[in-house]
């Protein structure tokens, strides 16, 4: 455990010296955060129309209310709340994409910097190495997720109709942000680290790792078109599946990590 913490500490120290690594994630997060405000607040305000007057949104909202969410909100606040909650799924994606750069460079970056061989000459196990690398990318992603959520919540509370922010405090919203999002991040980062230990350049790892964001994007589309509703039981089941996927990915990573090939064949 102490070796794992030592490696995570090194990753954090490295990141502190090179904060530019997380700038893309911060930028992407900020832009993603702006989008729902444009849709739910700015455009209706500029057009002089109310969201709740839109027949499409009214249909979606009706279905939404059937599940007992957002009771007591006036129609406009409920419409905004619905939109802000839909975009939450996209919002939890952005830290993943940012942290992907860190994870993708984790093993191949060490190899290219010629720092991997001395590291492998220590008693560090493969599990500790991979877990350290994954956590080194996951912890900043988690911090970014939490920061993004807090800023988003504060923005909705300040700029949207009164009470709309309550949508972000619903159990399903919290589960998406703090359970599903992190577990998916973890899976994506593990995949990137796995790939990073099998390819010769970080870009390949990043490209393959980013594929993991596809399920979330699909969930966003299905949800906003009304074909899927992310309820707490569904999110709980998805979380359980993801725990299994993460355990499987770690085992796969350990199996795929071939010290000898990395040392002797990578140039």
């Amino acid at each position: 455990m102490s070796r794992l913490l030592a490696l995570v500490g090194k990753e954090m120290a490295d990141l502190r010296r090179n904060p530019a690594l997380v700038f893309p994630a911060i930028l992407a997060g900020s832009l993603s955060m702006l989008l729902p405000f444009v849709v739910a607040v700015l455009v209706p305000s500029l057009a002089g129309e109310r969201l709740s007057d839109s027949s499409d949104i009214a249909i979606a909202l009706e279905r939404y209310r059937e599940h007992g969410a957002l009771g007591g909100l006036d129609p406009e606040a409920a419409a905004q709340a619905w939109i802000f909650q839909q975009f939450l799924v996209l919002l939890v994606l952005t830290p993943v994409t940012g942290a992907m750069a860190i994870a993708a460079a984790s093993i191949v970056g060490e190899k290219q910097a010629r720092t991997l061989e001395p590291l492998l000459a220590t008693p560090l196990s493969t599990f500790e190495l991979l877990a350290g690398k994954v956590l080194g990318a996951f912890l900043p992603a988690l911090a970014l997720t939490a920061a993004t959520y807090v800023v988003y919540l504060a923005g909705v509370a300040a700029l949207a109709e009164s009470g709309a922010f309550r949508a972000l405090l619903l159990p399903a919203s919290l589960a998406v942000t703090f359970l599903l999002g992190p577990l998916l991040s973890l899976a994506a980062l593990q995949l990137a680290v796995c790939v990073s230990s099998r390819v010769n350049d970080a870009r390949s790892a990043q490209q393959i790792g980013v594929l993991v964001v596809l399920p979330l994007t699909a969930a966003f589309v299905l949800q906003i078109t009304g074909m899927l509703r992310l309820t707490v039981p569904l999110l709980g089941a998805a979380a359980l599946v993801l725990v299994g996927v993460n355990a499987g990915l770690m085992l796969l990573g350990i199996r795929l990590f071939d010290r000898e090939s990395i040392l002797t064949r990578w140039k």
Partner: protein
Amino acid sequence: MLSASQLTRRFGERVAVDDLTFELVPGEIFALLGPNGAGKTTTLRMLAGLIAPSSGSVGVGSEILTRDTAPRLRSRIGLLTEAPGLWERLTVRQNLLVYARLHGLPDPPRAVDEALEAFGLRDRGGDLAAELSKGLRQRAALARALLHRPDVVLLDEPTAGLDPASARDVRALVQQLRSERRTIVISSHNLDEVERMADRVAVMRARLVALDTPAALHARLFGARVRIAVRQPAAAFVEVLARAGFADVQVQDRTLSVAVDDEESATPVLVRRLVEAGADLLSVAREQARLEDVYLHLLDSEAAPDAARADRR
């Protein structure tokens, strides 16, 4: 302390290391010599437990390095890789602290302080590794490799690319390790350095071409010679020496190089005959061929199949 028994490593069809056997004792400096691609780094990696041999084994103390024992035994081995491999965005102290923790040292900050002090890096602990000169980087890498006080120290090209002063510092550190009874294996192309430091030398080209002390290798290959400097032109004394039974005499200006069977008994005879012949002797010394001559001779012999077979015997 460290042994290799019939150590062999293949990469596909290619045999990188072939049937290497040796045993090292504490306080010994052992040098691996060979051309590029001779298997020196592969040997060091097998000795460090980084890659497994295709056949044969490595022993550290009384234990054999296996997949299961490697993580534990790696804590008894310090490896200096060919490139220093420091994390450049971290300070020297941070680099060492991570390794102190990876090795599970009881008081990592203290161990790092001691290492910085011992390697003359106390004032540079707060510097980023990227800001260090090549010599200081190598010194920091050496401090990192020795942080956990390993019994066995493996050094891959420890002075490659260093200026003479930095190389001298590294050599002094290696000598200090010997005095601490550590077992040291050096892979190097610097024959002069190896000659000065190594107790024994293994010349390899995938397989072992020769293994002995530098002096014994020389004697085995070239025989013993005595070098005598005289005040007069040396050619005048060749005939005198031939009459005394010294048939192999080489002359260079005022110096004679005489092949002898037994240096101890032949040298007084040589001196007496020359003085009797009127030579004014300036110096008499055992002639030592440079390790480079020995090395090149061995590899040239190895290249010729017949000579290689003879060497093997």
